[in-house]
């Protein structure tokens, strides 16, 4: 066990820290966010884990973690094209054709083309493999019809990675294929969905007999589920430590406010109940930090985190809800003000998603984490069945079927 950073890591961190002290994003608009990613890319902070031949840095997980942490510490947003960089690009690198790689990868890195992930459907959420959007062969093309939902970044996207059913007559996991879809093509309609935060980062996407050229299939026909599993399995290496940094900043700001905010005649920070709860949060955030080190330790050795990913996701997403609820409990009615918050009580800084972050946004946003990327319940099933080897539950869709 050695959890020290090497002198090289420390030197790298100092370099990165200096860079972030000198560079800030211009603003919050789409073009600003794209420009910011381009700036990050030119500094070598985008696609760090990608192979060099595809425009990446072949950087060690540690270096990626350091950049993610420093970015969080500087309070600046990360690259806008997050899904492309973390999930879709790497899948294309592993499973795409030479032509596909040449056409798409570089523009993912520079944010010239933004990508979304066309997975969930109204009737296929946690049970993704039951998806119904169909792709039917027509000459050399595929004709797509159906609907996707909760598609993050869809309103800004140029391309999407689509999971569609190409064969309804085989067991559900085997009848799915994986496509690159042009979001600007005429058969695609994007209807932004307003989230409980008031923002519209995700959308419904409708396909009305949209045509996908034959060369835009990824892998083989019927291989879509398998490929999507690799996509879902790509590890978001250093993100855990970046989360810790954000929680720490949040907690510090809250503690500062507690020095002056009066509750029942005394500063909140002198109230033993408040102190206990702040202390609990401090403890839980530290524990997340150690979990981040454990994951990083595995990644540094070239091992893929297995169960740690599910345990980590379950812990950090539930932790965020507890944290934001604590903020609300301590700030009371102040915590709910979207406008009119007295000076000195603001969260300040910039949030995860680029907006000026606020207590209310963080509180509402924390509800998303235990739903997206596999809900807490799904994570517990994964831990129970794949890690602890508890028997799988009987499921109606696994019963032997007659006919079809």
């Amino acid at each position, binding site marked *: *066990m*050695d*959890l*020290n*950073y090497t002198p090289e890591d*420390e030197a790298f*961190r*100092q370099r990165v*820290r200096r860079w972030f002290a000198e560079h800030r994003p211009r603003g919050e608009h789409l073009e600003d966010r794209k420009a910011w990613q381009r700036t990050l890319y030119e500094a070598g902070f985008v696609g760090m884990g990608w192979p060099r031949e595809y425009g990446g840095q072949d950087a060690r997980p*540690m270096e990626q973690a350091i950049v993610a*942490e420093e970015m969080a*510490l500087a309070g600046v947003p990360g690259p806008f094209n997050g899904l492309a960089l973390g999930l879709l690009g790497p899948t294309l690198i592993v499973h795409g054709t030479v032509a596909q790689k040449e056409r798409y990868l570089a523009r993912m890195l520079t944010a010239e083309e933004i990508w979304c992930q066309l997975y969930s459907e109204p009737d296929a959420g946690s049970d993704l493999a039951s998806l119904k959007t169909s792709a039917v062969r027509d000459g050399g093309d595929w004709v797509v019809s159906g609907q996707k939902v909760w598609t993050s970044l869809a309103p800004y996207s140029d391309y999407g990675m689509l999971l569609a059913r190409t064969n309804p007559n085989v067991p559900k996991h085997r009848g799915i294929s994986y496509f690159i879809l042009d979001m600007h093509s005429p058969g695609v309609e994007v209807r932004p969905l307003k989230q409980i935060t008031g923002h519209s980062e995700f959308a419904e996407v409708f396909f009305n007999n949209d045509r996908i050229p034959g060369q835009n299939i990824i892998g083989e026909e019927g291989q879509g589920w398998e490929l999507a599993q690799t996509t879902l399995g790509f590890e978001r290496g250093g993100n855990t*430590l970046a989360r*810790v*940094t954000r929680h*720490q*900043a949040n*907690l*510090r700001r809250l*503690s500062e406010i507690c020095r002056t905010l009066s509750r029942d005649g005394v500063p909140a920070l002198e109230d033993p109940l408040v*102190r*206990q709860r*702040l*202390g*609990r949060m*401090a*403890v*839980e955030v*530290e*524990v997340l*930090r*150690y*979990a981040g*080190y*454990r994951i*990083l*330790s*595995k990644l*540094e*050795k070239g091992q893929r985190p297995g*169960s*740690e990913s599910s*345990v980590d996701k*379950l*812990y950090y997403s539930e932790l965020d809800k507890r944290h934001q609820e604590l903020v609300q409990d301590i700030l009371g009615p102040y915590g709910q003000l979207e406008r009119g918050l007295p000076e000195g009580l603001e969260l300040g800084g910039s949030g995860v998603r680029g907006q000026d972050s606020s207590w209310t946004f963080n509180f509402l946003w924390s509800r998303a984490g235990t739903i997206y990327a596999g809900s807490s*319940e799904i*994570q*517990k*099933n994964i*831990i*129970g*069945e794949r*890690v*602890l*080897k*508890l*028997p*799988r*539950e*009987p499921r109606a869709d696994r019963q032997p079927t007659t006919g079809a």
Partner: protein
Amino acid sequence: MDFDFTQEQVMLRNLAREFFSRESTPQVVRRLMQDPTGYDESSWQQMAEMGLLGIVADPDLGMIEQALVLDEMGRNAYCGPYFATAVLAASALAAAGDNTLLPQVGAGALKATVAVLEDAISWQPSAVQMRATASDNGFVLNGTKRFVPWAHVADKILVVARTDDGTTVFVLDCETPGLSVTPNLEMDHTNKTSSVTFEQVRAETVVGEINRGWEVIGPMLRRAAIGAAAEMLGAMRRCMEMSVEYAKVRNQFGQPIGMFQAIKHACAEMLLDVENAHGATYYAAWAQDAHTPDAALAASVAKAYVSDASRKVCGSAIQVHGGIGFTWEYDLHLYFKRAKHLEALYGDADFHREQALRLMLEQPVQQRQAVLV
């Protein structure tokens, strides 16, 4: 960045696991629960030979090794004065720079304990009220210490008392006239504690320096907090393993109960708590050995987190088992009670949450990030 144990550490853990699963079987534990001394002398001597009693004094071994051994003890509800002697007394002696008693501890020739608590429940120096009054050639002690672990089998007792300008730690023979040991019966029958009363007891040997007793007790309590976390971790690990095993074989409604999400999810939450407790315990142990600036914070995080987590996991284990988990014959309560016993000692979760908050507020984030993260 390497969170894995070294080869030597893995060997030590395997050695300890093999030893305690042989020497501390549930049958042995149940026999010792009823035995007035409560431990097995031949196991004790074997532990001395294996070097387990001398970890504190061994320059090649640290808190990680100590935690690995305690982890295995918790897993097997080991009965004996190990924590009192090899963790508490040894840490206190080491903090005082002792080199006469420590080798005897390591050799298995000396059992010792440390008396801190009095009537008040507090792990702060201010709670030490027992007086040590200076006399001709030493001090005279009067008062009562509570919850002194394994005092009934100890050869020596280290006791912290109030002196003119602070606290002072003394070491005494347990046979010293005026010193009387009254054993308690703990809910955890695998652990024995006593009330120790001092009536005009003459104390001549000071551990560390006069009036600077907390320089001995403070570092001891930090190691004790991490050590207790390690032992609770072992106990909760065992509870989780038993629950998962049981959920696979216990059938109700025509299927193993582990197939139901209500049980499966309870087990998944146990794993989350166990993994986090592992991270917290061994990070704290590493930080202690590496003298990092966040070592004190990490120790408090570990004790606070693992106290809560072990309560949850061991409790949930009883729930998963149902009626059988509530019986004396079934072994689950051995680990449940072991974890509970340690929850209350060396600072409970509330105490360490307060410590953690104080330490966090004292440390500027930028600096910590640069130095540690």
